């Protein structure tokens, strides 16, 4: 958008920007600052002790490990689903396309109890899975299932528009030069999709790390085994350990800011790679 700075005649800039900044500060910035200010009531050593306590470290491993795994699974199946939605016709496609956003629309508590019902020992899938020795509900695989559910649309909806706008001439050129379909996909299509796939991965991961509602019902919440980091914050709060809860929250917030930065960079890269301008 070539908009020049000097000739803007539209009214309302000061009012709109002023209102935006005040509202943003009151609702988001000042409350978030409270986390960091509260954390400073701990000395550095105390802070370190809280955020590296064995039970807390175990929760990081569970949260981050399973979130990474879920995001990776979503990249694979999300790409396939986006590919099918863009490139193939099949019955019920419009319905599938609309329902991909279900995890955005379905409240997390509903997701949590529904998944638990399905994967519990007497559930539709829990029963056959436990028969072959795989316990899903009330154990880490259950957390994984919930994180896959909430992360899927991030990948599909990031990749889908790029696939739709993909210039088909490149693929046709590759085919005419004798590339096989798989080679074309790997050497031509995948590199173009890579930034979008990574963005989708980062978005799904960021959401999964902070997820609470859909996980706590199915997780079993056993310390050192299936306790996620957001639950650690809740546990500390319930013990009136506000400072401890805040310290863990500060660690998670720093990670969130970092992920936000990474996602911004990835989206800028996507824009460059696909030839879109800001």
């Amino acid at each position, binding site marked *: 958008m070539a908009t020049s700075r000097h000739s803007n005649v539209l009214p309302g*800039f000061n009012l709109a920007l002023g209102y*935006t900044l005040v509202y943003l500060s009151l*609702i988001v910035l000042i409350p978030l600052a409270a986390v960091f200010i509260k954390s400073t009531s701990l000395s550095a050593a105390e802070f370190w002790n809280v955020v590296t306590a064995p039970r807390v470290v175990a929760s990081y491993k569970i949260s981050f490990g399973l979130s990474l795994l879920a995001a990776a699974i979503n990249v694979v199946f999300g790409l396939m689903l986006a590919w099918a939605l863009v490139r193939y016709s099949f019955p019920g496609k419009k319905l599938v396309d609309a329902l991909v956003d279900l995890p955005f629309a379905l*409240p997390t508590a509903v997701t949590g109890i529904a998944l638990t019902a399905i994967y519990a020992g007497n559930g539709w899938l829990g029963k056959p899975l436990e028969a072959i020795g795989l316990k899903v509900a009330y154990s880490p695989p259950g957390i994984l*299932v919930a994180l896959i559910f909430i992360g899927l649309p991030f990948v599909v909806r990031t990749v889908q528009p790029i696939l739709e706008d993909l210039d088909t001439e490149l693929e046709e050129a590759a085919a005419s030069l004798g590339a096989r379909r798989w080679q074309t996909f790997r050497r031509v299509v995948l590199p173009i999709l890579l930034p979008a796939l990574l963005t989708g991965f980062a978005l799904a991961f960021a959401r999964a790390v902070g997820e609470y509602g859909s996980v706590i019902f199915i997780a079993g919440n056993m310390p050192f085994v299936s306790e996620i980091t957001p639950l650690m914050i809740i546990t500390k709060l319930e013990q009136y350990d506000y400072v401890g809860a805040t310290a863990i929250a500060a660690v998670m917030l720093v990670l969130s800011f970092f992920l936000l930065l990474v996602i911004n960079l990835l989206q800028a890269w996507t824009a460059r790679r696909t030839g879109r301008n800001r």
Partner: protein
Amino acid sequence: MDGQTHREEPLMAGAVAVFRGREDHARRFESRAALREAPWVKALVLFLSLTFFAFFLLLPLAAVFVEAFRKGMEAYWAAISEPDALSSIKLTLIAAAISVPLNLVFGVAAAWCIAKFEFRGKQFLTTLIDLPFSVSPVIAGLVFVLVFGTHQGWMGAWLQAHDLRIVFAVPGIVLATIFVTFPFIARELIPLMQSQGREEEEAAVVLGANGWQIFFRVTLPNIKWGLLYGVILCNARAMGEFGAVSVVSGHIRGQTNTVPLHVEILYNEYNFSASFAVASLLALLALVTLAIKTWVEWKAGEARSASAGSAQPAPEPTGTSS
């Protein structure tokens, strides 16, 4: 701008369902040999992706309704019409009725200054608006406990002296809801208004319109579908939020329980079918949200293709408001 230009994709982190029209591209690909996969590859991709879709998305949705009606219609009706359920519905409606309009006004103001003006730090401001998306809902609740909590909060002593209660009461629930739904409408409107430029508004200024006239007569008709899209997504999240609200709610039945919290309480009391009955209301809300969303995308696509035919560079609303 040429008629078939790419829609600008928003450069915002946390990209969730971003508003755009939908069209079917499959025919374009399936008609050309160079763009087709071998039939078995296509069959395999379809099988794997749709099986995954069915197991991970459809099955949980089906489970909600099956479990909800497990004990029959009467039990279902009893569960959703008992006083505690009704008061939780009332509280959820109140929280959404306050948070959605506030975030709507904010979204319009933010989009107006970001999309129509140039200023330093614009990209940074856009990123800050997205911040609540990347913050865990638990932390979204915690921050308000730290500010307004009775014992530990910054304003706790003052609030107590004035006999005011925010955390573990309704105001806290509303604040947490506003926080988690904060970016929804802004992030739909910013890219949409950026892609529309400001020529039309400038023309209105030249013709002597004042600010509000410009907004209501020129801008609003152009952004109405994006606005509606943002509002329904914002509303769905506002009514369904669990984590943030759970931290600031006192979990007092009939007083500080929203619908998702009521679902949790019933579930933890092993009252499963009642829990699923109430949950099915939320699932229904989700389905209605998706239906409206799909309809809006369809309407927006229609409005766009209608305007793409005209020589006007920017879309003129052509009777789609009727």
